């Protein structure tokens, strides 16, 4: 029976040789994670259910990254609870400030989530690991608690949708633009409950950083997973990092898809999602002059080294416009170190940008860059919902790192070529 990559991974983890979309099944989980917002509920549920031990202390990661370094007493108390739980359960992967990173950048970088895995995370952007060819999806805290107890979870097998990207990318256009375009085309519920499979000659040459950005935002179209067929680029990324064995799965040539979209992207220009929905996508060049107050370059979507490199190319020798605050947040300590060694930090500081320790921070309006009423930000993050970065009367525009950097210099949303 022909199957898609998502179906094959689920079948392998359910001890089945074949399965069909819509079937309910229990699958074994390779890796589970929670953060400082979702883990407290999961730990409460775990204890309330009378559980004593996690299914495997090497396969449950707790990563306080949203409100860390702790923004206030309440968040410090939440992290304290997680720290105590991690110690009590002898968890190998508890990441303290100074060693941590944003979960979805950190776990692939550390080789903890791998091709062919089933990964469950109490965070909606867990779908990021689809870029590795893993079946990775976000769940709530109670589902995480159940996984921590049993190492298993029940799923409805999603039907798959195939996205084929053809052509050749122009300068300043990357994975972020491709996924914004996709969401703009199909809408924020266009892939609801489904498995998005991102393929084509453009994806086949796309670096891992861009692939992570794309899979990361599959949830913004409502998808369960956003999976990319693993290849030589994937192998190059995982071979030095992998802490376990891994396996590449691929869709059969005659696998069934609920729908297939095919786009030639050769003429694409950088895109921006306007407030207050990731589906509200326009070309940067179509926009009137929109003055801004803040730029955020970072997050699980675009806080990787390659993203910072893009930003540095634009910021080098320039200054952030008066009246604009430019925040740059390397996603992990390793990204921070790489940026430091490559001389990016000096470029950023010379440009009068502020560089932060890794945190989700402003992306979700947590801390480190909250917007006041009437303020506007360009951010390389993933959501521009009403009030997402602060006041309900503030606005977030989503873009790639080059557009964000160009906008910081211009003081309005700008194409990198305009700088």
């Amino acid at each position, binding site marked *: 029976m022909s199957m898609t990559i998502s179906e094959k991974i689920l079948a392998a983890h359910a001890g089945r040789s074949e399965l069909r979309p819509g079937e309910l099944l229990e699958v074994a989980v390779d890796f589970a994670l929670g953060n400082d917002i979702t883990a*407290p509920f999961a730990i409460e549920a775990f204890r309330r259910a*009378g559980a004593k031990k996690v299914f495997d202390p090497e396969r449950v990661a707790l990563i306080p990254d949203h409100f860390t370094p702790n923004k206030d007493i309440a968040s410090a108390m939440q992290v304290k609870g997680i720290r105590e739980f991690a110690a009590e359960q002898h968890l190998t992967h508890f990441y303290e400030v100074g060693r941590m990173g944003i979960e979805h950048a950190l776990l692939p970088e550390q080789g903890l989530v791998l091709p062919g895995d089933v990964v469950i995370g109490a965070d909606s952007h867990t779908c990021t690991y689809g870029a590795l060819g893993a079946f990775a999806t976000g769940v709530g805290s109670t589902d995480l608690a159940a996984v921590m107890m049993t190492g298993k979870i029940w799923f409805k097998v999603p039907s798959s949708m195939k996205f084929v990207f053809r052509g050749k990318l122009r300068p300043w256009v990357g994975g972020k633009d491709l996924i914004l375009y996709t969401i703009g085309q199909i809408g924020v519920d266009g892939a609801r409950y489904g498995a998005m499979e991102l393929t084509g000659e453009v994806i086949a040459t796309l670096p891992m950083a861009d692939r992570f950005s794309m899979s990361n935002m599959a949830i913004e179209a409502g998808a369960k997973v956003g999976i990319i067929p693993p290849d030589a680029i994937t192998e190059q990324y995982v071979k030095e990092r992998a802490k376990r064995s891994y396996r590449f799965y691929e869709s059969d040539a005659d696998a069934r898809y609920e729908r297939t979209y095919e786009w030639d992207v050769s003429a694409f220009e950088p895109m921006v999602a306007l407030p207050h*929905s990731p589906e509200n996508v326009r070309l940067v060049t179509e926009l009137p002059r929109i003055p801004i107050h803040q730029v955020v370059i970072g997050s699980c979507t675009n806080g990787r080294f390659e993203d910072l490199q893009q930003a540095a190319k634009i910021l080098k020798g320039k200054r952030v416009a008066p009246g604009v605050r430019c925040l740059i947040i390397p996603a992990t300590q390793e990204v921070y170190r790489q940026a430091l060694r490559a001389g990016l930090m000096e470029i950023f500081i010379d440009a009068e940008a502020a560089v932060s320790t890794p945190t989700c921070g402003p992306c979700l309006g*947590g801390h480190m860059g909250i917007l006041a009423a009437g303020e506007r930000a360009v951010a390389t993050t993933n*959501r521009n919902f009403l009030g997402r970065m602060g006041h309900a009367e503030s606005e977030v525009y989503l873009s790639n790192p080059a557009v964000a950097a160009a906008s910081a210099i211009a003081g309005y949303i700008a194409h990198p070529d305009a700088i």
Partner: protein
Amino acid sequence: MNIKGKAWKFGDDIDTDAIIPARYLISTDPQFLAAHCMEDADAEFPEKVKAGDIIVAGKNFGCGSSREHAPVAIKGAGVGCVIAHSFARIFYRNAFNMGLPILEAPEAAAAIATGDEVEVDLDQGLIVNRTRQQRYTAQPVPPFMQELLQAGGLMNYVQKQTADAKERTEC
């Protein structure tokens, strides 16, 4: 299981940041979360909503983050059930896990307006609008899910099952 209350109508794509903004995710206390439920969409909602009231919304309700604080805030505010054209995937799972009844009912979601008196019969999947004298159908909630809702969510349900099994063994 029956629910009866006043309807509060919201639009399409109500995200979890609208249901409970991230700035309040510093607590897992249902009453604290309830005090800020839907406040960026309607600042007075936490004061106006009464026990048993019903949220009615368009497509893709609960899109965005995986925060379980969203169904907890809604339930904590006393909301008896959410009726929507459709639900986002993670929210759908979380709602049942937290013991918040939800119904996918496109016809009801379109017809009900804020202030309508609405009665919901979860067993039958029946929604009655007393104000407009209309009846709409939804997919009935299966018995297993109803038990889960009555227990107050997945963990209570699992605990109850474990306790029942123990009692049977001890008898």
